[in-house]
């Protein structure tokens, strides 16, 4: 079930006895959580009607007991259980081991006969629905057979852009298209962060006057929050100005620069391997690496595709050499890591 379907179902009738919120996306999750609380509890009932558990700190059995015990103060309850992925056994997840653990907790029996008026939400926000986590997510969903599964998928860059444009239009903000793109890129297409930044912009006065990318970056430091991935993206596009700018932010934020190089090294090696295998489009790249035992997210495949587009084969080889030299230079006695990295960015984007 998608978040939109979940929200629609709440309008149609009472909530189910048990839900599994699966996936890492926070914006829709927060909307769904608030809608559920509003649907079940009045503001006065929230204090005693909303119980929180964390499966990283308590057991599933304790949660089931709590849900199965009638409450003195709240005829209707929501039991919110975070870190649900913690019940999966560590290491290799065998279905039998996971099922045995779930059975001993009494969750199966509870799901067959939930307490009326109690809605239990198992929240697994740390599991992705693709890539390495996909199998774990599927196994977790199997353990909660009987619970309605709501999937919270990450937004793709295009979806995040569309979301941001819609929000800008709805909130009547005067943001230029390049400002919108900057916001989406700088915040890694995380719509929860984007929604926060838009709220701040609205309060600052973006309804009254137009704002471009430069002003946005200058006015809202959080919107410039750079990370290793944005630097990788900028370098992959051979965007020297943006790369130097991002490097500056990373250094100011105390980022560990050898880690940045490690990411870049992997990126260029993957790109070179993809070129040598003759694959260039993101789906081809994802399929190629998954087949050879290196599972890859679509967004990562997209990054690799961007790198291939910006760096021909010879330049990729040179880039790997530059990464190696910069890595060695960082380990030498030197006046400043930033100088080494700036030289690296300069040479790479030449």
């Amino acid at each position, binding site marked *: 079930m998608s978040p939109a379907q979940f929200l629609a179902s709440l309008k149609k009738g009472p909530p189910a006895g048990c839900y599994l919120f699966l996936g890492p996306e926070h914006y829709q999750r927060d909307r769904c959580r608030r809608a559920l609380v509003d649907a079940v509890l009045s503001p006065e009932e929230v*204090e*005693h009607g909303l*119980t*929180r*558990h964390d499966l990283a700190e308590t*057991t599933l*059995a*304790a949660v*089931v*007991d*709590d849900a*199965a*015990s*009638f*409450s*003195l*103060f*709240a005829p209707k309850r929501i039991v919110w259980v975070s870190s649900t992925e913690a019940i999966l056994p560590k290491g290799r997840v065998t279905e039998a081991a996971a099922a045995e653990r779930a059975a001993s907790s*009494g969750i199966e029996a509870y799901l067959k*006969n939930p*307490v009326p008026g109690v809605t239990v939400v198992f929240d697994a926000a740390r599991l992705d629905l693709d890539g390495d986590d996909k199998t774990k997510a599927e196994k977790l969903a199997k353990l909660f057979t009987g619970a309605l599964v709501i999937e919270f998928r990450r937004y793709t860059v295009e979806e995040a852009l569309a979301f941001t444009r819609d929000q800008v239009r709805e909130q009547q903000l005067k943001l230029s298209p390049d400002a919108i793109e900057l916001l989406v890129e700088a915040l890694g297409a995380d719509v929860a962060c984007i929604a926060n930044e838009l709220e701040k912009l609205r309060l600052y006065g973006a309804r009254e006057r137009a704002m471009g990318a430069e002003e946005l970056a200058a006015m809202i430091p959080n919107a410039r929050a750079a990370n290793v991935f944005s630097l990788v993206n900028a370098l992959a596009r051979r965007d020297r100005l943006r790369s130097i700018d991002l490097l500056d932010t990373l250094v100011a934020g105390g980022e560990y620069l050898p880690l940045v190089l490690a990411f870049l090294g992997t990126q260029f090696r993957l790109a070179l391997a993809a070129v040598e295998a003759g694959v260039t489009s993101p789906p081809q790249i994802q399929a190629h690496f998954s087949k050879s035992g290196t599972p890859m997210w679509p967004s990562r495949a997209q990054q690799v595709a961007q790198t291939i587009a910006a760096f021909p084969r010879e330049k990729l080889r040179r880039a790997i050499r530059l990464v190696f030299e910069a890595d060695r230079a960082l380990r030498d006695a030197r006046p400043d890591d930033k100088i080494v990295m700036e030289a690296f960015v300069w040479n790479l984007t030449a």
Partner: protein
Amino acid sequence: MEFIVNKADLARELNLAQGVVEKKTTILILSNVLLEAADGQLTVTATDLELGVRCTCPARVVRPGSGTLPAKRFLDYVRLLPDAEVTVKVQENHWANITCGRSKTRLAGMSRESYPELPDMPEALAAIPASLLGGLIARTIFAIAMEETRFTINGSLLVLKPDSVTMVSTDGHRLAMVEAPAELPGVVGLYKALVPKKAMLELVKMISESGPEAKIEFSGDDNHLFFRLGDRVLTGRKLSGNFPDYERVLPKDHQYTLTLNREELRGSIDRVAQFADERSKSIRVGIEDNELRLFSSLSDMGESEEVISVEYTGAPVDIGFNAAYLSDFLRAVGGTEIEFHFRNGESAGELRPQGGEGLNYRYVVMPMRI
């Protein structure tokens, strides 16, 4: 600072302070006790910032002053000393020389400058008989919520009226309330405060060492609660937030009432609970044709059943209960007979001591689905 103190006195006060001292060492100074020697007495202070205790014992003060020493190591060492006088000399560099007979020890301390100040106790609001307060705590403390996130029920509600004192605890599934008559002329109208569980445990410790006639002076300011028993003052940070409206959930009437022998019921529950699920301790209570039947089963272990004769001719009732919830009450309550009031398998049940032990003691417990 230098003082000479009787070993037993010192060990007793340090032992009391040890219960309050911060166990986690996130703030190092809080692992220490503050020692202050002046005017013929030694004052020992310990705090974890939530709770504080200050106690005194007689001492021969050679040189007045103060210093802090690691609470656990100091207590562990003092306990091992022979029953004799102990000389403690804290030097300028915060090291302490401890001498007792032919034993000499040096212990590294810390400056008292960084030790937090405890608030002074305001004028006492009420003097509550220590044994009475101890009894109220014993009858309610087990029902306090364990989850730290539910901070409004992480302690007990203390309600003072000019003619009574009431204590209430709940974890959301059960509620223990006990009200006792008491003459509290200093209380005007109604005084309510949320007492943290840790403070209650320390109070029990203090009360256990007091005489039968001892009284606890109680007062509170905006943020703290104060309990003074003799030379000892316990200071606790008030829990904030609103305790649930407990009077609303106290059943007004009951459809059925059974009278049961406390020890018989307790024994039966304990035996049946051996075959209940280890974590939920859920047992089934069936009442039908003058019999109360307790039953539990574990598919791979076995099952257990106990039957108690009762006077009951109503409709058959089957209720699931957490056995631990019932046992907790049966251990805390006195008297021979208890009353069990109930309606059906989805309504609150209530247990009370028959005759009331001179107290209005009510224990409301919600059933569980099994």
